[in-house]
């Protein structure tokens, strides 16, 4: 420490360090109250004349339910939406009842609708149940097979697996 002071060629005013604390505290106190040179001291807001004289009466009236505040429509927006939805539902229900036809019967269904329903829905019937209701003479192989067999594939199968063509018990015109 002594060595450093010996090297130091700078000087301070007499008693500088004695008054340092006081000056620092004074500076800190100033900073507390600092006002900017750039920022205006007044922000430019004003109030209507005699406004503050009316505040107590306004609050009292509101507490007593007098001079109720006008509430913006937006506050009740959800209530209006709900009411509108209920009215719309009622109108639709009434309109539906007026315009709807008598109840549908089976005969009213187009056969294409029934076909498409049967094609797109699994009825869960076994082959025996189908056989009971469907006339064999009217049924084709393609009606019960999910995949269509090409004629060529069938012939290949028969060539490989049937030794005697007579076993098939086909009538003459069918072979041709």
């Amino acid at each position: 420490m002594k060595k450093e002071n010996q090297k130091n060629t700078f000087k301070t005013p007499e008693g500088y360090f004695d008054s340092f604390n006081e000056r620092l505290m004074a500076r800190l106190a100033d900073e507390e109250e600092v006002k900017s040179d750039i920022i205006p001291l007044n922000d430019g807001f004003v109030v209507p004349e005699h406004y503050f004289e009316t505040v107590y009466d306004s609050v009292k009236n509101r507490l007593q339910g007098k001079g109720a505040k006008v509430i913006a429509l937006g506050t009740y927006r959800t209530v209006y939406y709900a009411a509108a939805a209920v009215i719309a539902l009622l109108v639709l229900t009434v309109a539906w009842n007026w315009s709807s036809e008598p109840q549908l019967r089976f005969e009213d269904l187009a056969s294409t609708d029934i076909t498409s329903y049967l094609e797109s829905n699994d009825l869960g019937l076994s082959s025996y149940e189908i056989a009971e209701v469907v006339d064999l003479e009217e049924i084709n192989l393609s009606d019960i097979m999910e995949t269509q067999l090409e004629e060529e594939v069938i012939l290949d199968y028969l060539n490989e697996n049937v030794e005697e063509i007579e076993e098939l018990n086909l009538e003459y015109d069918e072979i041709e």
Partner: protein
Amino acid sequence: MIVEETLVAELKDKQTQAKAFEVLVNTYKERLYWHIRRIVLSHDDADDVLQNTFIKVFKNIESFKGESKLYSWMYRIATNESLTFLSQKSKKLGVTNEALKETLAENLESDVYFEGDAIQLKLQKALATLPEKQKLVFTMKYFQEMKYEEISEILETSVGGLKASYHLAVKKIESYLTGAD
């Protein structure tokens, strides 16, 4: 100078409540009004929020336990009411809080209860860019000349934190005001 404890006791007593409430409103209306006005900016909105604040104070006086000063408690209610008001307004308009603050500052140009010049208008625009807490600290310190200890009790923030916020706010505002448009 009213004694807070006495006023609170009178407010809680049905017999003396009405008179005490009148004293309370007349004592704090101006200070609370300016605090609210500097948050919501428009006079009509400030009037609305001020009334809400007093009504809330009246209805909740029973729950005031005296752990803080009545004055700080009312300021806290006023601050919350003002911020809630702005938040509801921005939701109603479908904009963000930041966008609403910018719009409110822009609207001051045509506000009959704003007599500020160009630099005061620019100050409001600068304040609109500050984070909420910095803006609160700045207006409470700079315009309302409150002590850090008072602000600390209202905003429930340390004095050190408030000083830092204030310092930052001043720097940002000065930079905004001296910057090019």
